[in-house]
């Protein structure tokens, strides 16, 4: 340790150093290669200065701003959902029939369409079944002979 450091150190222990002198002394002691209790002390102090929280702090201002963004986003989503539902109901309203006679007629036509389709299938199936029965009849005829 040189004389300048020693002088500063003595002044430091007497609590007569200015903040600038203390900073200078801390730099000098940090570069000190001697493993004395004094250099350990200054190193320990500088380590205390490096303590930081494990998790950062929430900025209350940003948190409140975030809250407003959340409110704005919720309102926008709400408006979109309501307008979507309104549009959906409006589109469906075009197909609504309020007159019971007209509704009956539409239902009857729809059912007719379904039943016609079913009958077509039935006819087609019966023709196929007749074809399928032919060999059976032929075989049974042979057996009878």
């Amino acid at each position: 340790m040189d004389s300048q450091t020693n002088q500063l150190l003595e002044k430091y222990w007497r609590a007569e150093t200015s903040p600038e002198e203390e900073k200078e002394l801390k730099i000098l002691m940090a570069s000190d290669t001697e493993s004395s209790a004094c250099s350990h002390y200054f190193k320990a102090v500088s380590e205390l200065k490096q303590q930081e929280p494990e998790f950062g702090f929430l900025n209350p201002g940003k948190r409140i701003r975030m809250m407003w963004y959340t409110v704005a986003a919720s309102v926008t989503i709400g408006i979109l959902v309501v307008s979507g539902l309104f549009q959906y109901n409006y589109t469906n309203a075009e197909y609504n029939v309020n007159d019971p006679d007209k509704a009956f007629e539409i239902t009857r036509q729809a059912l007719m369409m379904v039943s016609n389709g079913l009958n077509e299938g039935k006819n087609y199936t019966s023709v196929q079944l007749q074809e399928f029965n032919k060999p059976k009849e032929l075989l049974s005829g042979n057996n009878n002979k």
Partner: protein
Amino acid sequence: MSKELFDTHIIPVQNKMYRYALSILKTPDNAHDVVQECLLKIWKNRHMIATIDNPESWAMRITRNQCYDWVKVNRFHLAEMHPMDQADTYHTDENLLMSDRQAWLKRIINELPVKHREVFHLREVEELSYQEIADILSLTLAEVKISLFRTREKIKETITKIDAYGLAN
């Protein structure tokens, strides 16, 4: 306007506030919670920042008051807690050495009276001026100087003993 003042004057000192709270409360989680509460409190009174000469000292004083309020409310809980012990997190030789140094310094600091301990932290760790320390702790300038002198005298005495006999006490 006050929002900008909060961001420029208070946010940069939040780690200082944390270290100060940690030096009083000893446990990182409690120190973190207290500082978060302080930030919220300061945010609610952010209109005052423009009227205050030294917002940093003001924030530190709020931190101190909040810490002692916390101690008052949790004094029974506090008695059951152990001081911060980070030994498990240190593995390398350098970290072990750092851990030893920290433990040694903490033992010296913990032997000091509370007022001396706070003056020591604000001067040595946070490098505040005598006037700022006096403002935060509501002391006179002379009291701060005497407190710091006695603390350093005690530390020098301990260091001399260690160098002479290799003893920490």
